[in-house]
């Protein structure tokens, strides 16, 4: 009798010999490269928009892009929170009219004429574009396209209906303004990839910027001076970005040209950008928004493997370090954070800054994903790592100086990815999708009180309806800001 593992290995060897010399044909390989390029662009934009802080009252959005496509093969087990409040539609201070039920949307109100007079802190603007899909026939056309405003209690108001052909994404919104900053991708062959513009929430008018980017760009955040910071791809598919500052008067200034393949994170004061270092395994770099100066900052932890989590304040960062994975373990194995003595460290970004241990992770405690940190009202919110590089996330966690804790559980199958952004009054906005790797399906938006862990669902999952050919929803809410 033969041992199973040996037999399987021999079988693989024999099969590999029988197909020796096989390679993907040129068309297939070109398609693989093109698909990877597109997905990496979208992933980068998601990472960028996930962690931009509020500066000057204008909050940045999260964009669940069209590139997150896939088979939807993951069971959309809704993430659950330790404490969940189910908002009940209420008519607070004005008459919202009757709840409307429409295919592809959760129950909502048509925005009354005076809605914007009642909008304030805690409201969230979302682009909502329901696109059903079938396992057999694939993605169907969008049923509708709109900008929806969510009240802090989870009431939804349709503010603007948009044409189906314009896939508008909410980039940023100051709840005191009647306009929302948007962008939308342009079709191939139209001369540019992206258009920046505004949508007037009162009139529905869509306007475009006079000056546009030549290449794909992602919104980084706002500078201390109130300028929009954008990271534009460099030409010819090369690696790197150019950071631009778009002033409120429409003028633009190049901040820095960077070789980094990551997208910058703006610090809470709007004065510095955090980017990957020349050697990301050894440190990171900080870019001065005013001068464009770039300074390399080492992690400063000898003998440990370190990755950036995010800003802690205007001059220090949170860094995760752990012992190297043993050589006998495969390089891509799950990291056992406790066995590898994982810890969270404060690394100051100023010259001669100090490295201070903050927390040593114990068994069962949530550990941050690299570059997922979001500082909210004195606490560090982060996406919880499952230990695999590039894998799915386990949920959303918070560290506030004590033991890290989970505030949004990814569910038993851990099949969720999350994007975070700060909300008003100590709340964290979370956009989550039950997807993993390249798969992607509809998203849901939560508002989480980081102090108590209580969460409210702003937009719920939509139920599938296989009998109607809707095995899953390919997209629903696609971006948000508030």
């Amino acid at each position, binding site marked *: 009798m033969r041992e199973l593992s040996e037999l399987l290995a021999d079988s*693989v060897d024999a099969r590999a010999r*029988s197909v020796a010399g096989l*390679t993907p044909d040129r068309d297939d390989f070109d398609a693989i490269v093109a698909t990877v390029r597109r997905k990496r662009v979208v992933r980068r934009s998601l990472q960028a928009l996930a962690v931009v802080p509020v500066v000057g009252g204008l909050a940045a959005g999260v964009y669940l892009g069209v590139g997150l496509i896939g088979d939807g*093969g993951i069971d959309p087990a809704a993430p659950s929170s330790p404490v969940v409040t189910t908002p009940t539609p209420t008519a607070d201070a004005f008459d919202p009219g009757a709840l409307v039920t429409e295919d592809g949307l959760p129950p909502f109100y048509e925005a009354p004429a005076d809605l914007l007079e009642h909008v304030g802190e805690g409201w969230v603007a979302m682009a909502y574009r329901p696109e059903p899909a079938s396992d057999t026939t694939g993605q169907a056309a969008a049923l509708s396209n709109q900008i929806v405003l969510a009240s802090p209690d989870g009431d939804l108001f349709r503010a603007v209906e948009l044409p189906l052909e314009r896939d508008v994404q909410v980039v940023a919104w100051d709840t005191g303004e009647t306009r929302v900053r948007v962008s939308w991708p342009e079709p191939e062959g139209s001369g540019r990839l992206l258009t920046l513009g505004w949508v007037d929430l009162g009139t529905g008018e869509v306007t475009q910027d006079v000056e546009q980017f030549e290449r794909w760009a992602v919104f980084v955040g706002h500078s201390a001076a109130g300028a929009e910071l954008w990271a534009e791809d460099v030409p010819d*598919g090369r690696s790197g970005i150019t950071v631009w500052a778009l002033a409120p008067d429409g003028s633009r200034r190049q901040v820095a040209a960077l070789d980094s393949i990551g997208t910058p994170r703006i610090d809470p004061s709007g004065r510095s950008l955090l980017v990957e270092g020349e050697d990301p395994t050894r440190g990171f770099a900080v870019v001065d928004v005013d001068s464009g100066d770039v300074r390399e900052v080492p992690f400063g932890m000898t003998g440990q493997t370190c990755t950036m989590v995010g800003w802690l304040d205007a001059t220090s960062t949170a860094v995760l370090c752990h012992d190297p994975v043993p050589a006998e373990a495969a*390089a891509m194995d799950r990291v056992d954070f406790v066995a590898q003595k994982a810890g969270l460290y404060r690394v100051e970004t100023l010259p001669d800054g100090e490295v201070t241990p903050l927390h040593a992770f114990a068994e069962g405690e949530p550990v941050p994903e690299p570059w997922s940190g979001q500082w909210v009202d004195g606490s560090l919110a982060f996406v919880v790592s499952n230990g695999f590089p590039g*894998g799915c996330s386990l949920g959303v966690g918070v560290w506030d100086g004590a033991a890290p804790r989970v505030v949004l559980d990814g569910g038993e199958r851990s099949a969720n990815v999350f994007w975070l952004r700060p909300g008003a009054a100590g709340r964290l906005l979370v956009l989550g999708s039950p997807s993993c*790797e390249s798969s992607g399906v509809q998203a849901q938006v939560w508002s989480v009180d980081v102090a108590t862990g209580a969460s409210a669902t702003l937009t719920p999952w939509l139920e599938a309806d296989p009998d109607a050919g809707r095995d899953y929803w390919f997209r629903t809410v696609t971006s948000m800001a508030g």
Partner: protein
Amino acid sequence: MSRWEPMLERVARERYPRLVAHAMLLVRSRVEAEDLVQEALVSAFSGKARFTSLAEAEQYVRRAIVSRFMDAARKRSRERAAYARHSAQPSSPVPEPAGDLPGEVEAALAALPPRERACVVLRHVEDLSVRDTAALLRLSEGAVKRYTSDGVAALGAALGTTTVDESPVVTVTTKKTSIKEVRRA
């Protein structure tokens, strides 16, 4: 050219036959196997992981092959569940084994349910732990033990193989599917 492209080219040029061979443990036709490998290449190189060596990239793609296979199996399962409301669907016939070793092994694996197949491949080909297999396939550790044990037993009957150091199954094994899985089906 971006940093990931040379590595993707090397994997496709130098490791493609081995990747296809791994995929053929999960699907029977070479065309299906190539599709699976290409999906896995897209998945691996679109993700956050960075590969510093060819071996590292190949290993990651091999695991992505199993992950993508399971995603597709779940999708087909949902599809069949929808059709089953209208008509009983015959299960896929198990192909006749070819006379050579890979043909026999692949045929024996093809007779296993997809989850058992995936668990056996990850545990006995990729040498992943139960915990890591569970994380990769988004299953509970108990389910991984059960599927692996059932799969190994079936392969033992079909191929006359033995195993060493197999984790004992400690969960209740009177049912092959959990309550949640019954609901999904």
